[in-house]
């Protein structure tokens, strides 16, 4: 845990039993199914999963960013700052979003408004949430740009988003998210649209800022390499559920869920032994048409038993701080 973190008694964010369903013309889609997790101040929680695993929808549900309908939150509790965010009026939620909870989205080009200067967009949350006037907001905006490492901050404030490169735009997005000293920062695939050398810059920046500001960060990504480099603790999501949760080293050294294990075996690496042939997870991710009655990983699992087809496993603790939603955690397929 970084030194900058303030000592707290409980988690800053506590999500339990979250269930989000989309009502579409083709029927219901159970995008998020009974997801629970918490986040401590100063902690960086990595969330990994493939597209459609429900990682983004989870985060959007908990701060009310999903359009309802078609989305519907069926159940769950999100405790933040003494409030249940799922039962909060729109005005309060609006004050929290961009204020105490900051957001960074995947694509820095589409999430910045091309018709306003970067300075204006940085000042907006400061004036709305912190009640600053124009001059104060500009001073703070300049500090923020310097914080995220943009040179000539004073001049760059008057530039428009298209005058920034991809990496610089993502830095601006991070600066906006940090504007009101959030307690929680949710970053949804913040480096996916960037090149590796730029991604490395953003990761270094994020590590530094987290220590400096002591906020809790939720980092959503599909890249296990990024997770290994940045996260303290990891949630692995599959088919709308959390299938495994563990501290980062524990997860990589001792994965318990067959999906996590398969995922770790699938990815090639630039160093170490080169595999002659890549390990493959056969089949396709599930279509979440109905509330699951079996394990979502059933079809692709190599250690599945009869029980896995009859009930959906819940998360059980396999080691201290490490849990997995599997009836046969750590099971190894019989060779041959």
């Amino acid at each position: 845990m970084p030194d900058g973190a303030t000592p707290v008694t409980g988690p800053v964010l506590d999500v339990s039993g979250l269930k989000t369903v989309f009502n579409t013309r083709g029927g219901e889609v159970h995008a998020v199914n009974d997801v629970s997790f918490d986040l401590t101040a100063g902690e960086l929680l990595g969330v990994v999963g493939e597209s459609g695993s429900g990682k983004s929808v989870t985060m959007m549900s908990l701060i009310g960013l999903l359009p309802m309908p078609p989305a519907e939150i069926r159940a769950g509790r999100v405790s933040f700052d003494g409030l249940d965010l799922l039962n909060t009026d729109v005005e309060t939620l609006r004050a929290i979003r961009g204020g105490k909870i900051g957001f960074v989205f995947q694509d820095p080009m589409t999430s910045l408004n091309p018709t306003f200067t970067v300075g204006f967009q940085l000042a907006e949350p400061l004036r709305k949430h912190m009640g600053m006037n124009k001059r104060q907001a500009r001073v703070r905006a300049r500090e923020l740009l310097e914080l995220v490492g943009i040179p000539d901050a004073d001049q760059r404030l008057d530039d428009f988003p298209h005058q920034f490169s991809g990496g610089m735009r993502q830095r601006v997005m991070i600066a906006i998210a940090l504007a009101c000293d959030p307690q929680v920062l949710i970053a949804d695939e913040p480096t996916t649209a960037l090149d590796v050398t730029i991604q490395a810059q953003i990761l270094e920046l994020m590590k530094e800022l987290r220590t400096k500001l002591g906020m809790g960060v939720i980092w959503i990504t599909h890249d296990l390499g990024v997770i290994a480099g940045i996260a303290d603790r990891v949630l692995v999501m599959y088919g709308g559920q959390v299938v495994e949760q563990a501290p980062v080293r524990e997860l990589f050294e001792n994965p318990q869920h067959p999906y996590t294990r398969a995922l770790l075996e699938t990815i090639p690496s630039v160093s170490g032994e080169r595999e002659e042939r890549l390990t493959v997870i056969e089949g396709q991710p599930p279509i979440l048409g109905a509330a699951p009655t079996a394990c979502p990983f059933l079809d692709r699992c190599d250690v599945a038993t009869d029980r896995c087809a009859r009930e959906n496993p819940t998360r059980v603790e396999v080691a201290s701080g490490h849990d997995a939603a599997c009836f046969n955690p750590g099971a190894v397929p019989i060779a041959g």
Partner: protein
Amino acid sequence: MPPALIRGLCQLLDNSAKKLVEVKDLKMHFPVYAGLFRRKVGDVKAVDGVSFDVYEGETLGLVGESGCGKSTCGRAVLRLYDITNGSVKINDIEIGETPQSELRPMRPEMQMVFQDPQASLNPRMTVQAIIQEPLDEHTTLTKAEKAQKVGELMDAVGLNRAFAKRYPQAFSGGQRQRIGIARALALNPKFIVCDEPIAALDVSIQAQVVNLLEDLQEQLGLTYLFISHDLSMVRHIADRVAVMYLGKVVELAPREALYATPKHPYTQALLSAVPEPDPTKVTGADRVVLTGDVPSPSNPPKGCNFCTRCPAVMDICKQIEPTYQELEPGHFVACHLFETTGEQGGS
């Protein structure tokens, strides 16, 4: 693999394997027009003097960041563009200057798999029609023969024949990419340019497609130019790897040599920027984090293209462009750090 063995293998390649594709000083510039009279004001030098060979039956990986010109290079090699300058030989036939109408009969030899399987398949055509289209254009097979061939191709790429009458939207991303691969294989090509074939797919599906490409290469003796930004996947699939930066190849080497002992500072930085899926390895001490961004290809810096970001930059780098030379057998680098002939005296 020990270096001696690599050298041996390279020599073996040099002597026995045939060069299927020879690219020399390939340039692809796109003009920029501006102002009231739309006058030409400059060029985007997407590919600016690239040379490499692809041997028969091998996979040459082409890596680089977005905007470095790797996709343009792949398309230019297949003459999907009218190239600005340079020579491209496929199977000893020069196609650099050939007009498009004369290229057409040669197209069956060289095919392409595109990045986005969503955008490269016509949503109004059935899978059958998509895979059959090259056969319609280039062969005189009967309807029944074509249907037979389409069935065989679908088997080869692992698609169920029963789905031939469905439309692309009924398939998942990985399956769509298989359709694209089947289409590329329809005319029994020798050389396939794979332009980021797995970039749009999920990790667990990427491995399936890469294994398929490897199997097909083995069965059909294909030669690939595999373009990707994913260095770890290229390490898996490629025999030799070329690294591009701002329109130029900065380093080209056999796979093991490139990943174990990268020479060019850009290759080193690129490799160290790849996040390792192992938390114990993340020390951060030996990590090279490049500062700044890639300069614009319409206005590349003087001297070496990488001089604005290079951690080992010298005065000469800002003046003179480094030559692309063979450092060890099969290991080419364009960097002043390794220049052995000429220019040391400074001019």
